[in-house]
């Protein structure tokens, strides 16, 4: 070890001379190819990116690819899956979308409800969380006192595990002793108390409401960073030009928050697609059609005893494509802007 290490600590001047090229020309040509190869940037950088690339390639992209291949088979139960390319087909996808298409406004198979609820969750949750986050950010940005404390308070829910928040939201939604109904009764609104998480009309919205509570703090932080990046001259210029506060925000400030909105929305939407934990803790694997989502359905098909591996893989692939659909426009824009 010592003999190996001692040349490393040699003065750098000699190293420079070897890299200078002259000594290489002096050696024979076969050796020089090998040495050139060894000295190329690619080879030099290999140890830094190759392990990570291999690991990510195998465990992330490899797993996604494998999952897709499984979705083409008929794998079910505890037999070994057989990968016979001649038998690969898209039956699972046809079955899934066939069932989704059977659904109408009022009824349909579970697939239809899970698909529909996933979209409702995706859109409602993202839009409302963004709006709430923006309002919070605008308020916190008013040079108020205790700004840091408020920021922490609003961001805190985000740091809690969904298991924790789902359990205490379930308590708060308890129709007879929960905080929400008790609060409503306290202010004389006893008439609008509901069985929030058991009445199918409200179930999904109760979940969305809780998720908005948990994520709007995150949106606030993203927006706050966006607001802070807007130069103060623009506020002043707008005021000088006679814009009132509302107009100033509507015309000058909010349009400049587009980048913040996009990045927050992408994070929220991807989260919404895999919003599994919260529902699983609240309702188990069977939330009923009013609150079923694709992520839960996928889990149920694969792991809740039925072992429909191929069908669950198809649902997983559909979720993956949906997430890609959300992210890729964002990535493309970043790429066009040269930010990638």
């Amino acid at each position: 070890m010592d003999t190996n290490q001692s040349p490393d600590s040699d003065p750098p001047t000699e190293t420079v001379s070897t890299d200078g090229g002259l000594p290489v020309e002096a050696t024979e040509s076969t050796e020089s190819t090998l040495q050139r190869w060894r000295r190329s940037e690619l080879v030099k950088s290999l140890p830094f990116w190759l392990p990570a690339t291999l690991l990510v390639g195998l465990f992330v992209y490899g797993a996604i690819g494998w999952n897709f291949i499984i979705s083409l088979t008929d794998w079910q139960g505890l037999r070994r899956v057989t990968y016979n390319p001649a038998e690969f087909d898209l039956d699972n996808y046809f079955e899934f979308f066939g069932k989704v298409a059977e659904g109408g406004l009022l009824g349909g198979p579970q697939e239809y409800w899970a698909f529909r609820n996933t979209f409702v969750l995706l859109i409602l949750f993202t839009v409302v969380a963004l709006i709430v986050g923006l309002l919070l950010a605008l308020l916190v940005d008013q040079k108020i006192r205790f700004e840091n404390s408020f920021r922490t308070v609003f961001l805190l829910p985000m740091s809690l595990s969904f298991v924790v928040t789902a359990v205490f939201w379930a308590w708060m939604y308890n129709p007879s002793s929960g905080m929400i109904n008790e609060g409503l009764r306290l202010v004389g609104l006893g008439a609008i108390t509901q069985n929030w998480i058991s009445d199918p009309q409200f179930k999904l919205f109760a979940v969305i409401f809780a998720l908005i509570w948990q994520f709007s703090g995150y949106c606030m932080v993203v927006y706050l960073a966006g607001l802070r990046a807007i130069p103060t001259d623009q506020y002043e210029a707008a005021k000088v030009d006679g814009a009132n506060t509302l107009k100033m925000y509507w015309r000058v400030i909010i349009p400049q928050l587009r980048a913040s909105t996009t990045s927050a929305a992408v994070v929220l939407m991807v989260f919404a697609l895999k919003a599994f934990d919260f529902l699983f803790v609240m309702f188990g694997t069977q939330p009923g059609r009013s609150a079923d989502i694709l992520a839960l359905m996928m889990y149920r098909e694969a792991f809740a005893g039925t072992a429909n591996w191929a069908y669950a893989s198809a649902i997983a692939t559909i979720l993956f494509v949906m997430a890609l659909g959300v992210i890729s426009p964002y990535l493309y824009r970043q790429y066009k802007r040269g930010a990638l």
Partner: protein
Amino acid sequence: MSDKHSQFSRRTVLKTSGVAAAVGLAGCTGGDGGDGGGSGTENEVEVVHWWTAGGESDAIQALIEGFESEYSDLSVNNNEAPGGAGSALSTEIQDRVLQDNAPSTFQIWPGGSLQTYTESDVLADISDSVWDSEMEDAYKEGVRDLSQDDNGNYVAVPLNIHRLNNLFYNVDVLDSAGVDPSTLSSPADLLSAMETIDAETDAAPMAQSTQSAWTVLQLWEDVLVGEAGVETYEAVLESGVEENEDAVRSALQTVVDYREYFNADAGSVAWDEANNDVINGEAAFMHQGDWAAGQYESSEGFDFEDSWDHVPFPGTEGVYHIVTDSFVKPEPNPSPDATDAWLSYVGSVDGQERFNPIKGSIPARTDVPDDAFGPFLSRQREDFDNSNAQPATIAHGTGVSPQVKSNFEEAFASFAGEWNVDRTYSDLTDAF
């Protein structure tokens, strides 16, 4: 030259360590799936089960101690897979079976639940090695049937039996309402008794959890048995709901009628929280498996017969609606002989006598002495011995395949909340 060499070696070191790290990481990750398994010897029985809560955990511990003292050369690797009713266990076991790394034995509901495993031929036939004629004689027919695969080979050994068709009640609440539970002889009688309780007392007539599907599903099952009889119920398990449409719809309607009398927070509490209402005197009746009795027995000053009592669910006298746990022998097995020894012990008088009083269930064998069982379980055992039918259940996996069970749960998850008989009936027609 020495300089170049040094650069080489440095790079080589970097490369080698990079590759080593990659291989090492891959190795770790790959090895994860085999967590807790595959390391045992022929003399170690790896037992995977979901009994991790207080009394349950003590009960399995007592069983393991008994086994280890009877077979001193064998040891048990007690591998718990927490998660109510095996929700995590089945995931783990299926994963391990697919990787050819099955444990020696694992806990499973016998009957329909076995289907996933028997269809794929991963359970060993233990007709000769474990089920001797002495053991066969000690089990009732309904329980023996559940232990066999479709070809009539024994693949499972039931350890304990819980009863599902119970109606527990708070004695004081019923007294103050003037209701005598022994006079209730049909689900309709129960409905009118609940009307009386609702009018006479402040208590909720029935404590129930509608938060998860299984509690509503099992209530419907017993209403169906109570209204239409065991034959109809078993016909539904066998061939689906269509041939018995009227009975199925009527039972659904009865549950909808009952619903008026549930505790107000039924939709957001678990069954054990609802059960506390019975203990506190805030609810009169509770339909639940007899595991609910453990909660009464552990509440101070709440005594059997004085404070709480039990009748079979109205209309189901003579029926012992069984929920049972068993152990099986997956193939290929890491410790074949030791596993046979474990299964024989699970099916023995000694094992079941140690396990069941602590678990709060009755032994699957009928010849276990009564001494260790308290008054409630002794009464249940008497009912079991005198029962003329021991049907399987949907909600607890014995009566139908996992796929059908999942479809039923899906239907009842929506039923609990919508309370729509027509829609649920049509969901149920698609369940088989």
